[in-house]
């Protein structure tokens, strides 16, 4: 399959469009939203979707569309930073573990991984919140910590199979240290895996942020967040179901877009699949 075919593949295109829309919405929200995001306007509260409030207003009269646009910003920021933490810590750990396969360092890293795996991100968030109080930073740290073993494991797995290759032996014969080999030979060859996993963790991060904010462990008012919009809509669900509908759709479509893009990238990078499509 050539790159051009791949770029035309339907799933990838849909995914790319959805992701672009939400990234743009987030960017635009920095400069402009239809109404002020924290513009409390009690007389206009609970307006059903209609002009000029395209997606309606909430119980404080804030414009839902504006809040969704600004909420995209928070979701994306939290998820990106959490992926960043996961990669920055997890990838070097995975590389080091693979380079020292079977040795003590490998054992310690992998055991540590298993241990962190036993703490779901929600549990980490509960611990952090109980001690430091709720904030967006907590959400980032909680999701970020959860991402670390994911990246460490996938890096180690990919790296282990590469360490068996003869070109690694050639590099060792050329006198290169295992750190240098990890950076020159291993890292570029596991990059594909990391990019695919990165998009998956990105979308999981958006879901996790929404969940944490929904139960009050994440982003705090007045910063707009999709998860908290849903939490606030819960008591109004009998009278104004649209308040629950739109933020949920925003989450669904963003995550869907990222997943479709991730699948497309995996198909592109996986030589086995590419072979099969020829």
């Amino acid at each position, binding site marked *: 399959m050539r790159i051009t075919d791949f770029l035309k593949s339907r799933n990838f295109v849909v995914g790319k469009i959805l992701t672009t829309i939400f990234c743009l919405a987030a960017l635009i929200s920095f400069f402009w939203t239809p109404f002020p995001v924290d513009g409390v306007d009690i007389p206009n509260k609970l307006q059903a979707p209609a002009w000029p409030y395209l997606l309606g207003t909430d119980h404080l009269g804030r414009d839902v569309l504006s809040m969704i646009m600004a909420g995209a910003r928070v979701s994306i920021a939290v998820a990106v930073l959490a992926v960043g933490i996961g990669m920055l810590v997890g990838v070097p750990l995975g590389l080091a573990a693979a380079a020292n396969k079977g040795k003590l360092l490998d054992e310690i890293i992998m055991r540590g991984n298993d*241990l962190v795996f*036993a703490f*779901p991100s929600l549990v980490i968030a509960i*611990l952090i919140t*109980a*001690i430091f109080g709720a904030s967006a930073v907590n959400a980032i740290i909680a999701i970020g910590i959860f991402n670390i073993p994911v990246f460490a494991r996938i890096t180690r797995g990919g790296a282990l199979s590469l360490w068996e290759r003869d070109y690694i032996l050639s590099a060792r014969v050329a006198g290169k240290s295992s750190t240098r080999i990890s950076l020159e030979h291993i890292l570029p060859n596991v990059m594909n895996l990391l990019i695919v996993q990165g998009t998956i963790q990105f979308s999981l991060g958006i879901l996790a942020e929404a*969940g944490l904010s929904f139960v009050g462990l994440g982003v705090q008012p007045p910063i707009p967040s999709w998860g908290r919009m849903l939490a606030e809509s819960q008591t109004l*669900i009998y009278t104004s179901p649209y308040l629950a509908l739109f*933020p949920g759709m925003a989450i669904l479509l963003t*995550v869907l877009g990222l997943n479709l893009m991730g699948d497309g990238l995996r198909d592109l990078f996986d030589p086995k699949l590419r072979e099969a499509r020829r």
Partner: protein
Amino acid sequence: MLRYFIKKIQSLALSLLVASLVIFVAVEVVPGDPASFMLGINAQPETIAALREQLGLNVSLWERYFTWLTGMLQGDFGTSYTYRTPVAEMIQDRMVISLPLAVYALVLSTLIAFPAGILAATKRGSATDTSVMGVTQLGIAIPNFWFAMLMVVVFAINLRWFSAGGFPRGGWGDSFADYMAAMKALTLPAIALALPQASILARVMRSSLLDTLTEDYIRTARAKGLSKRQTLWRHALRNALIPVLTIIGLQFAFLLAGGIIIEKIFFLPGLGQLIFQAITQRDLIVVESVVMLLVFAVIIVNFTVDLAYGLADPRLRSGK
């Protein structure tokens, strides 16, 4: 098999020990003095001293950790500061809701995912495959708590098939009717929890089966005269189960923790309610115990999955 079992027991014990240490440090060391933390900044020094006495904070850290650990082993999780009742009892009351909910969701997820994944793999490339993949793609992307809210709107508010939330006062009760009422109260929450997990599981099942079907021994089986269907059931399925088991194990952790969020939507008096109250009331003893319990459950499930591997794969049993 015995050696494999012993090895796994060892790592189980080690994981539990380290996890308990991490939680202890996070809750009892990081905030400084737990007693002043729990009472807030306006507390009187005498009150703090009294609480320190009650919590047993006047001894060394190691001693406290050891007391906490041995207490837990005997089922004593300490006493809640705000409720003045043993934490073990409070947890027990909540567990009868949270644990059945997670198990219910896991069973649903497996029951949906296995047939869907197998069907999609056997009819690869067909319309059935495409629709299963499409639905699961949506299922993965949907936030489960939002799905739960939608179900409340549809099934509780509009159709009135279920109540919008709550749990029967009598709990699981004694009669069959009580039992069914409890099950009914858990049904929507369980579906909300199960659907995204079922989607993931179905996709893993499908891709694992498809991978297995390209193995050399599948060709060998076909050369013996087995039909495609026979090869799938007799040779591919059991081999494909190994990655699926891993995911099931991971999912139980998500279901138990994710249940905390779903409980909030359905006003279920489970562990979620307990822990959110504890956080707002700064009741660290309760937070510590519930977190330990959740982590304990995850580690135990992973241990069970490891044992299941051993049963599924003879290569692991012989320790290679």
